[in-house]
């Protein structure tokens, strides 16, 4: 006996579509809302002089510091991450060691970033006597993004068709010659994209640099060597939002807007780099 009226396939289809559409829309809404609120509230304080000034509240120092941090992080993580990915994708045979490495990667990716910060403090700042500085911060960030870089690079390497490797081996190439001359050049667009996206994440992180690199200074904001502390956008935002009294609301939002713009800019760079490099190489 049917109590409810029969739902026709047409109606169930319409309901399903509406629900799925709303779920998808939920992704767009928060992003849009966030961007709109941020720029509207920060609009009054956003100006060219804000990002080029070294006066109190000026963002030039943290922009320089963030850029330096991101660049150094990329320089440190790229060789290790790509080498590990090459080992996993091209050399390793399935077995206990590989399972162990993969387990380590998954776990590394799951460690909270504040733990990385404490670990970086213990290892780089104190044990290795780097002090709180750019280098210690970049090393800590490199650890944080290492699993992302390995995973992205391995994915890019696996995209290179097997038949190209076979062609190379059949011509008498060793594994390394094949990697260097065929696999790596063809995987490079994907690797570079993955690297930029990964370090883009580092640009927005606060916890890992909290104890290892960041400081808030009104007098001497620019690092002169790898062993100087740096101002970083995310840390500046953290400080002015929580610790410094009487900061104008607009300035906080403007700082947040600049940080988000920097991260989105890096993501855009990754997309452009991929498109450019893809056009040059195809198979």
């Amino acid at each position, binding site marked *: 006996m049917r109590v409810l009226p029969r739902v026709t396939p047409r109606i169930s289809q319409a309901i399903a579509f509406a629900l799925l559409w709303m779920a998808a829309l939920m992704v767009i809404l928060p992003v849009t809302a966030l961007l709109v609120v941020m720029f509207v509230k920060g609009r009054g304080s956003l100006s060219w002089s804000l990002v080029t000034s070294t006066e109190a509240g000026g963002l030039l120092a943290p922009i320089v510091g963030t850029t330096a941090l991101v660049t150094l992080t990329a320089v440190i993580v790229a060789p290790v991450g790509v080498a590990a990915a090459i080992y996993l994708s091209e050399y390793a*045979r*399935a077995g206990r060691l590989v399972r162990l490495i993969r387990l380590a990667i998954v776990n590394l990716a799951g460690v909270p970033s504040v733990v990385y910060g404490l670990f970086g403090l213990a290892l780089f700042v104190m044990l290795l006597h780097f002090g709180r500085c750019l280098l210690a911060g970049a090393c800590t960030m490199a650890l944080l993004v290492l699993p992302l870089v390995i995973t992205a690079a391995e994915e890019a390497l696996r995209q290179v*068709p097997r*038949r*190209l490797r*076979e*062609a*190379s*081996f*059949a*011509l*008498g*190439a*060793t594994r390394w*010659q094949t990697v260097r*001359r*065929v696999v790596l050049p*063809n995987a490079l667009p994907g690797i570079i994209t993955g690297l930029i996206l990964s370090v883009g994440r580092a640009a927005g992180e606060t916890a890992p640099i909290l104890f290892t690199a960041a400081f808030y200074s009104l007098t001497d904001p620019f690092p002169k060597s790898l062993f100087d502390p740096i101002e970083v956008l995310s840390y500046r935002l953290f400080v002015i939002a929580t610790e410094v009294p009487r900061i104008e609301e607009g300035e906080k939002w403007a700082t947040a807007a600049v940080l988000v713009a920097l991260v989105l800019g890096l993501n855009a760079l990754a997309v452009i780099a991929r498109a450019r490099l893809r056009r040059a*190489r*195809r*198979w």
Partner: protein
Amino acid sequence: MSESNTDRPIEQPEGEIKIETRGLNLFYDAFRALTDINVAIPARQITALIGPSGCGKSSFLRCLNRMNDLIDDARVEGDVLLDGGSIYEDDTDVAQLRKRVGMVFQTPNPFPMSIYDNVAYGPRLHGFGGRDSLGEVVEKSLRGAALWDEVKDNLRKSALDLSGGQQQRLSIARVLAVGPDVLLMDEPCSALDPTATFRIEELMLELMERYTIVIVTHNMYQASRVSQHTGFFLLGELIEYGSTVGIFENPKDQRTDDYVRGRFG
């Protein structure tokens, strides 16, 4: 051994032998892909391997330049002799082996580089000297693969812009550039149209003067057109081996007879 090889209609060729297999078995994990293959392949002739899909003919071909090494759970028993010397010794230099035993694959697989760089790939790997002589090797190899006249003005063009048939001749040129004695061809025409197939077959007959060629094909007409010797594989066993004329006109095993007459496979 339930069925000894000697009971089989296997006629080893006369004259100079380039490759010989002795009790060759190939396993993928527990699966036995090849059973006890004993065959002698004559120098500077074309030997065709025929049989239905999955019969082991391609796997056999890949034993001859040790491409099966690349498969994690593949294991070879028995031996393969090249010019009388085993290629499965512990200290065999596999890269050097593959230099001598070149391979052309089923689908054309040019590298995403220029035509010139594709052909120069092998010589550069093996430490080739001056630029001029490298250019000469490239030209000679492209001429050898009957491709030179079509590409000589566009050597810097991407190899991926060539047609399928041209790409397959480029693959052959790339192999010739490392100076092999043997060419293994794994269904080299299966991705090509009839005209391109005809050109490759013509080319094979030219190359036969200097190279020992082993071709896997599922096209029996191709086997009968180009080869002097034919082996028929079924379920990982070499059922019959002998002169191509003999195999096609007067097969001794009933299964060979059924296959070449198109009754199965």
